[in-house]
């Protein structure tokens, strides 16, 4: 049963990232957007409505990690964050996570650095897709 839940979670993350890669989804996002997946479906809500600023860590000209900031506290805590880096064509070129958004005592927005694999050349990165499942 536990195994089944984990499988579902992994599939949900994959599905969200994959779905967000579709042209229709990208158009709906207008290129820069955050929100609950599938507006109009009351069953699933968002933990952070104002998006996530991202920064990059690099080594030898390759992206090694993505620094995600502005994660709503406490709404997203205990959620699992995954991300995909995309190239100009919108294709995924690297990914990271899922990584647990840790719980802390304050109410300041959280931040998280997610390592990515493989480590793409910095100039090939043109976008990021991110999903938080849960909490």
């Amino acid at each position, binding site marked *: 049963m536990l195994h089944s839940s984990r499988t579902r979670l992994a599939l949900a993350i994959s599905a969200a990232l994959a*779905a967000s890669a579709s042209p229709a989804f990208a158009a709906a996002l207008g290129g820069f957007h955050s929100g609950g997946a599938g507006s109009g479906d009351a069953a699933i809500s968002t933990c952070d409505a104002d998006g996530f600023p991202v920064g990059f860590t690099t080594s*030898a000209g390759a*992206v090694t990690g993505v620094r995600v900031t502005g994660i709503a506290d406490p709404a997203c805590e205990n959620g699992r964050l995954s991300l995909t880096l995309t190239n100009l064509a919108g294709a995924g070129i690297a990914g990271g996570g899922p990584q647990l958004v840790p719980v802390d005592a304050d109410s300041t927005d959280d931040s998280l650095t997610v390592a990515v694999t493989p480590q793409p050349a910095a100039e090939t990165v043109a976008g990021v*897709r991110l999903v938080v499942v849960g909490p």
Partner: protein
Amino acid sequence: MRGWLVLMAVVGASATSTAVAASLGVTPARLTVFAAATTVPVTSCRLEAAADTYVDQLSLLSNFGGATTLLVWSSLLQNRRSFVRFDLSTCAIPPTARVMTAVLTLFLATAPSNSRTYVVSRVTGAWTEAGLTWTSQPAVAGSPTATRATGTASGVVLTWNVAADVQAFAGGSQTNNGWRLTDSSEDSAAAQQGTLASKENAAAAARPTLDITFYP
């Protein structure tokens, strides 16, 4: 495997992520998605010359380190060559960084009467602005770094791509002794004289620069 096939089929059918997630039974969990066009910011750095001078074949032991011009002449037994060096430490380029661009820019104050090809070569030996002479000029790499036609218009900017050299300097595989600038065909019977601005030039905008972009 079967699960993935089902998943791909669902996504391929343009289902929303909500529907997909719901079909996987993750409701009522929150599902927050975010997408942004973003690029990895490149680090830029502009340097002014740390040292520059020219040497004169007709004045074998003279030094022109304090001159406001750099000369590149092709003239029989009266050639002149220029040298320029930049202090890369100011840019703090990590040894493992990937240099994307490095452009050497010089201002051609007076163009030669015929368009010439100016050759930039990596200098392989040490030199000083106050001590360099025709006699003491160091050697250069066997292959030129870059070439550039001058044209015959004065008061224009000339640029050379020196990214490979800067990459080597930053990475430590080559020592930064700067570059030598020469006419590709020296010893012309009819003198061809180009005059460029040096770092001592009164017009700051005309002085040599090196523009570098890199990813740490």
